[in-house]
């Protein structure tokens, strides 16, 4: 018997049996679909979290970054002395350095006067730390006293800033300090901050009167072209105080992501949710396959009496599992895409459905169905013709 018919005949019977009882088929598909959506949403939230966690650092322009070793992530920095950063200028490959000040502060909604916390980034406008054109083009205006730029992608609770600015209403308060919004830029919210503003280092000190320019939260180092990143990083690591981390750009992104994945147990929570979704799906599919075998045991015993081998029924069960996986996954994918759009519109965080994610989830669901099939085939031994006729 050739390979094609080896799979084809039991698969065809499985297909016909599935479609014979439409009500049961719909229930079975709904079970797989449920697991599918659960897994997609968990992974979607997790990836969205990771993507938003690194939304700020991805816009930073620099080659090497200094952070205090006690800083778990950018949103909760531990300050260190600016001299650490300035000392790196002694290395011949270092072109320029700039401090970055970070702070969470309440921002007053211009319309409703309610306050909500956002992230304030302070840096020397000429240092061009943010690789965002709109920020760069306003670097002279940012030098003026009490001016900030507002992140257009902040949550709507901060007020319709674009409309307000066009209407000339620019005055508000951050940390109870009166400032003027001089423009908009685009960054994006994260789990740590619902919104962002950028301002100059001097204005930052005015907003946070307790802060001192000598205590910086992050140091950004730019190298001369052609310098070896790894070499300079290794050289500087030797010279720097032991309480300072020195990261490359990708290390910084990894550090931020790792915080959310491991230090904050959020990565674990979503991973756990994914596994739970698969376990629930496994139980559902197992139940479906199990009752399917029980319901068809007379038919299977009949086929056995006709001369069909045990392995035929094993293939039939796995074919059923495969069809359930595919038939549940397709509507699951379609529904998840629209749920992603819904979540994006509610959370203001990116939630992309990538091809890779779809493939991953399909293999999760397929493995889930196959494991369920593997558990269910033990029931096949009940279909023994000698005991039935």
């Amino acid at each position, binding site marked *: *018997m*050739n390979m094609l*018919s080896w799979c084809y*005949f039991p698969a065809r*019977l499985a297909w*016909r*049996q599935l*479609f*014979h*009882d439409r009500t049961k088929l719909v229930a079975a598909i709904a079970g797989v679909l449920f697991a599918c959506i659960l897994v997609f949403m968990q992974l979607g939230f997790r990836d969205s979290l990771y993507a938003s966690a690194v939304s700020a650092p991805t816009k930073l322009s620099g080659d090497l970054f200094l952070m205090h070793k006690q800083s778990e992530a950018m949103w909760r920095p531990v300050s260190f002395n600016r001299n650490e950063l300035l000392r790196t200028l002694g290395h011949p490959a270092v072109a320029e350095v700039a401090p970055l000040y970070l702070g969470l502060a309440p921002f007053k909604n211009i319309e409703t006067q309610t306050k909500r916390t956002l992230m304030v980034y302070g840096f020397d406008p000429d240092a061009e730390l943010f690789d965002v054109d709109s920020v760069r083009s306003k670097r002279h205006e940012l030098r003026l006293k009490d001016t900030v730029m507002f992140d257009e992608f902040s949550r709507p609770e901060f007020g319709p800033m674009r409309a307000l600015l066009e209407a000339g209403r620019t005055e508000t308060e951050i940390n109870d300090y009166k400032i003027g919004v001089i423009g908009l830029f685009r960054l994006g919210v994260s789990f740590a901050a619902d919104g962002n503003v950028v301002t100059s280092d001097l204005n930052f000190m005015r907003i946070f009167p307790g802060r001192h320019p000598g205590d910086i939260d992050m140091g950004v180092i730019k190298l001369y072209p052609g310098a070896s990143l790894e070499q300079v990083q290794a050289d500087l690591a030797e010279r720097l105080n032991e309480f300072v981390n020195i990261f490359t750009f990708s290390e910084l992104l990894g550090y931020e992501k790792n915080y959310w994945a491991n230090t904050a147990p959020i990565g674990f929570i979503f991973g756990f949710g994914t596994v739970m979704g698969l376990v629930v799906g496994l139980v559902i599919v197992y139940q479906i396959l199990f009752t399917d075998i029980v319901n068809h045991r*007379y*038919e299977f015993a*009949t*086929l*056995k*009496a*006709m*001369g*069909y*081998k045990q392995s035929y029924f094993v293939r039939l069960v796995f074919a059923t599992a495969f069809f359930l996986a595919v038939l549940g996954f397709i509507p699951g994918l379609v529904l998840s895409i629209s749920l992603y759009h819904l979540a994006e519109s509610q959370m203001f965080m990116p939630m992309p459905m990538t091809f890779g994610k779809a493939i991953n989830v399909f293999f999760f669901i397929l493995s889930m169905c196959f494991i369920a099939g593997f558990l269910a085939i033990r029931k096949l031994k009940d279909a023994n*013709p*000698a005991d039935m*006729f």
Partner: protein
Amino acid sequence: MSIVIDVRNLNFSFSHDAQALPVLKNVTISIQKGEIVIMTGPSGSGKTTFLTIVGGLRQAFDGSVEVLGQQLINSSDQVKVSIRQQTGYIFQQHNLLKSLTAQQNVSMTLEMFNTMTERERLEHAAQMLKAVGLDDRLDHKPDQLSGGQRQRVSIARALVGQPKIILADEPTASLDKQSGQEAVGILKRLAKESGASILLVTHDYRILDIADRVVELEDGIIRNA
């Protein structure tokens, strides 16, 4: 005439316990090619057990059971499967697959061997269904057929593989008199045409007239009627 089923001194009981009641005691019977043998007897006499042993569905350990030249006593699964494939089995209930049409059900016998194309299989199945008088019911599923029609489909399924032996277990038990006699009449006609032997167990005395020979099994012992 050659012998297709040769049973000698077959003993069988449902457990290996020495005190267990034997179901079959020293059964000896042989069936010729093309012969139609009906085995009667009260229920519980061991008829069905005997049939399942001859059909390779049940393992026996004591005596000799040669079917189509293969010994079934202490046989491997392979031998049993091979005997099942060469035997047409007709069940008390029709035992058709609910999800398949009459034609697809009959075709299942041929799918097992995979020696034909799909078209040939369906053609053979259609011819067989025509032979049992159901050429207008090819695309009906079992629950759209009457009891007699279902049993005729199951006869077609048993015969389409051109088996040398047909084993039938009370094929008329769930049928009324007329459709029962119709069904066994068809069975006899087709078996005679193809030269197949039939071993039919029943306690339906209305159909004894189709047999070449009737034997009676009582308390596990064969008596020639």
